[in-house]
């Protein structure tokens, strides 16, 4: 099994005629994903790699002849909120927001509406999610042949604040023979649709997933929230974490953001040191080196290294 996606998942691409969206559509189709439509206002009647383009999400749903499961939103920041609200109000339940630099107030509005309508948002500022050899929703892993190299089906769920590091870590798990159940690039912004703790129940319910690896960075309270969740929920899943950006704890780096918009040390709870302490206090193993991850996962699973 997997989380959020399966072999039957259908989705559209909003902003499908943009340069990056055209590539992303190609990659997803090649991987076997069911891209059933695209939306770009004013471009109805065109096709992108055989995928029909519509002016509205409602037209795409009508053409499909039934509910569509998901949407990948890749429109400029000023139009992102509207695109996401349109998807939600047309019954779409899983929305991957690729766009960077969306103002926090807009993100918070889309997340609040999603909660009201029972929809889930992944991102913004993310590469989407992938179930190896089943479905890829977003640019995660790149072209199908590259994605195949890094992602083999397996037992580890991956969640990462960095899109690129989702693939780096998954590739090391694949090389170690552990494989990946579902990998989610959750996004690098201060407010995102789905945090580690919010995705944990899905992994918990997924029989294929036997362990979790998270990639994290300074800034925000997401790790504290995960630590709380672990303490409160007696999870069956061992979690291994890697924290990047320890250099940002230096005094002169305070108030500077690195890598992602949400990666900034503003208060003492934002620092790498503080987060590592919180995660460890909840029984989450935080590795020092990125290349330790596969061996530590094996140790947790009782598999010979």
């Amino acid at each position, binding site marked *: 099994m997997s989380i959020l996606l399966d072999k039957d998942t259908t989705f559209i691409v909003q902003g499908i005629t943009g340069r990056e969206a055209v590539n992303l559509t190609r990659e997803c189709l090649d991987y076997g994903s069911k891209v059933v439509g695209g939306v770009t206002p004013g471009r109805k009647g065109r096709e992108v790699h055989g995928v029909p383009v519509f002016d509205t999400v409602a037209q795409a749903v009508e053409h499909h002849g039934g509910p569509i499961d998901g949407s990948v939103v890749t429109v400029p*920041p*000023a139009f992102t909120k509207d695109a996401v609200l349109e998807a939600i109000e047309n019954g779409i339940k899983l929305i991957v927001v690729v766009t960077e*630099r969306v*103002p*926090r*107030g807009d*993100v*918070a*509005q889309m*997340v*609040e*509406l999603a909660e009201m309508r029972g929809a889930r948002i992944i991102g913004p500022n993310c590469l989407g999610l992938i179930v190896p050899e089943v479905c890829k929703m977003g*640019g995660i*892993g*790149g*072209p199908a042949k*590259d*994605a195949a190299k*890094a992602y083999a089906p397996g037992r580890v769920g991956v969640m*990462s*604040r*960095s*899109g*690129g*590091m989702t*693939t*780096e870590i998954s*590739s*090391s798990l694949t*090389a170690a023979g552990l494989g990946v159940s579902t990998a989610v690039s959750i996004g*690098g912004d*201060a*407010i995102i649709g789905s*945090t580690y703790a919010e995705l944990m129940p899905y992994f918990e319910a997924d029989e294929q997933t036997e362990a979790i690896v998270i990639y994290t*960075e300074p800034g*925000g*309270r*997401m790790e*504290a*929230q995960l630590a709380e969740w672990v303490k409160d929920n007696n999870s069956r899943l061992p979690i291994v974490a*890697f924290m*990047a*950006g*320890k*250099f*940002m704890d*230096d005094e*002169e*780096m305070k*108030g*500077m953001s*690195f*890598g*992602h*918009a949400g*990666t900034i040390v503003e*208060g003492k709870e934002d620092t790498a040191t503080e987060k590592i302490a919180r995660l460890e206090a909840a029984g989450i193993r935080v590795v020092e*080196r*990125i*290349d330790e991850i596969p061996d530590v996962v094996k140790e947790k699973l009782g598999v010979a290294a």
Partner: protein
Amino acid sequence: MRFYEYEARKIVELAGVPVTKYGFCTSAEEARQVAEEIGGPVVIKSQVLTGGRMKAGGVKFADTPEEAAQHAEEILELEINGHMPRGVLVDPKAEVKQEYYAGVVWDGTAKKPLMLFSDMGGIDIEEVAETHPDHVGKGHVSNLLPISDFEAKQVVAATGVTGSQLNRATPILARLARLFRENDMTLAEINPLAELADGTFVALDAHMEMENEAVGRQKKLLRKELEIAEDDTRETYEPSDFERNVAAIDAADHRGVIQGKDHGFTGNLGLVIGAGGGSLTLTDAVRSQGGKPANYSEIGGNPSVAKACGLAKEVLEKDGVEKIAVMMSIVSNTRVDIVARGVIKACLELGKDPGETIAIFRIPGAWEEEGFKILDKYGVEYCDRSVSMWEAAGRAVAKIQGAPA
């Protein structure tokens, strides 16, 4: 984006929060005039984007306009934590009966704005929350629904405040929450919110920060109301030549993105690295293994040869840089061969041997075979994904430490 106190006061004033009759001045003469108009004891406050101005002597009291002018003259010359003041604010010295705190911040976990109120104003709210939690009221507001006064009232009442104080504070907190949402603030606080001798409430000091991503759509407030110039970006520190040059190279070509920072970095190993998370991981990996990075950088989104070359050149030309390490997490969009060509070109154009200058090249992924062929030709040491980011960083550090000084 951060605001000076005089701007933050204007922002709350525009939202309907009462303020004292203050004046922003850039000369001693202006300060004298404002003090004269106010006609009584005044406070002269340095307008700087940094804390601790009271301690540094940036806040002074004056009984006469002449004294106000004298203080203004001194404060205008006074550097605080490396910042020269933009001007001074001349404010009537208020007869304060009680100080309160009103604030709104983002709660990233709840994904909603959080209203905060305390009847212990004038001090840091985090300190109050730790020592006197019963004196801090809290309440979330919706991102979508209208913000009602009763929501603010509940937060104020939670601190035990009642009577006319409750009725005066409530609309102020509600207006602060509305301005936070409407103006894309990430922080909006009034501290102290003062109850004067006559029972009225005024904002005596305010602190505002706006989300950088929203600056473009807040032009009316920023340009028209506050008259802030477009190029006045309020960075936390002055960008270095390196940072400016890299930004200029990035802006000159729309293909891909490069970024460079060297604030706080003084080492000898230049880093040409990417992408977002990869750069963070690699910078740590270099430092943890005893290396001294000369800079931080990010490559992403498939830059052109010229762009990769430009970044590498800027890094190589930094004072004290002996070698560069070219490393990224696995790439699927950025092409390995293009980055390889860019960094080799940078070495050659500066008259350096790529094989000697590039300590390690570790970028696995798209077009790697083509990239590795080029690197082979110039004798550059490279590795694929079977060598971890940690190990690659370690090899670069070992090389630079073994190099003759």
